[in-house]
């Protein structure tokens, strides 16, 4: 990024090549639309390139990129009311109902106990959408980017304690939303987890 700051366009092309997919997937999870995610990805790199003169080496490049991407996603979600957190139909237990989507373009892939892959994808997608924007961003950054709490805090502009609470609340909510499908996929592997803890 220092080379980019000095006007090296080839260096910036390398950055795009390295981060394009990650930023694009993050935005896809945030806004839920591939085309919008692509547009915002381009916008992210464009704004970073314009602001390259203000880059400081002590700031991690990935954190900076995801901060810009996250802000753009928040702006887009706010400007698009249909994307805001709407109340989802819940079962009596508080989880999302399983949606049997038909027809399907691809061959359904069974996951277990009669549940097909596309149904799981739809349920997980709906559960992720049901989280608020900060929870969703924290989940995506932690799960798919494997960011530490400190890095997530930088992206979301939160302190360490706030990040811990945020991720914890997000996971608990995610579990609650997906309980309907969890019960149908596989039994709970209590012994395995106990084994992990003993190790």
């Amino acid at each position, binding site marked *: 990024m220092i080379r980019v700051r000095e006007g090296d366009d080839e260096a910036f092309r390398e950055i*795009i090549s390295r981060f394009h997919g990650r930023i694009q997937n993050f935005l896809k999870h945030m806004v839920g639309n591939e085309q919008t995610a692509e547009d915002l990805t381009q916008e992210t790199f464009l704004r970073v390139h314009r602001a390259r003169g203000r880059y400081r080496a002590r700031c991690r490049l990935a954190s900076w990129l995801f901060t810009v991407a996250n802000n753009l996603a*928040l702006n887009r979600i706010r400007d698009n009311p249909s994307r805001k957190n709407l109340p989802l139909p819940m079962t009596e237990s508080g989880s999302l109902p399983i949606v049997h989507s038909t027809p399907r373009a691809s061959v359904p892939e069974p996951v277990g106990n009669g549940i097909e892959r596309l149904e799981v994808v739809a349920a997980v997608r709906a559960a992720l959408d049901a989280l608020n924007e900060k929870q969703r961003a924290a989940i995506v950054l932690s799960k798919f980017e494997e960011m530490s709490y400190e890095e997530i805090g930088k992206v979301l502009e939160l302190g360490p304690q706030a990040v811990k609470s945020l991720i914890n609340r997000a996971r608990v909510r995610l579990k609650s939303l997906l309980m309907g499908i969890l019960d149908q996929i596989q039994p709970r592997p209590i012994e395995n987890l106990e084994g992990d803890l003993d190790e």
Partner: protein
Amino acid sequence: MNKTPLNINTNANEFHTLPGELGISEIVTSYLDGEATVDEVEIAKKIIQSSPEILIEAQDIQRAWDLLDFLPVMVSTEAKTIETMAVVLRESGSGPMALEESALHGANSVFASNSGVSNAVFQENIHLKFYKKISFLRIILMAAVIGGCLGFFSLILCRVFDPRQTAQKSIAIGLVDNIEILRDAKNLDFLRAIAVPELFGQPDSLENP
């Protein structure tokens, strides 16, 4: 860092008392994420092993976490990279600094604002419109200056390199000089002999050989 997502219900906090600001579930979460302190690690282990209910709850959260792997991943291609780079190069340097400021700090305004309209976006639009207007005026002014310069130079070039004007000018200069030289001598025949026939007609000696 190999993360093992695991958590427990926040309701469990009601049954446990721990020092510090963190609740039980946060401690367990951070422990399983590899983010817990040494003290928190010990506490988290005891909590999880102490209650089957907490263990089951944690396992459910872990399985829900694992379900995220089912989400499809968008594939980034070289073509997309090139396209993005082309957009960056085309657009770079054409925007005001306010745009970047808005992108970098827009989230604060989003969460700070209770209204539906963000100050960041509003100001961004204002800056964008202003910048476009300034750019348009700049282009018009530049075109006018370039056009004026081209016209002026073309006029000069026509004056300098027009062969007819050059010849006439030379003749006129020669004529005046000769008039000055020959005024005292009053020998207009000589003048006619060296001057332009179209102006003075042919010298007598030539007209009547």
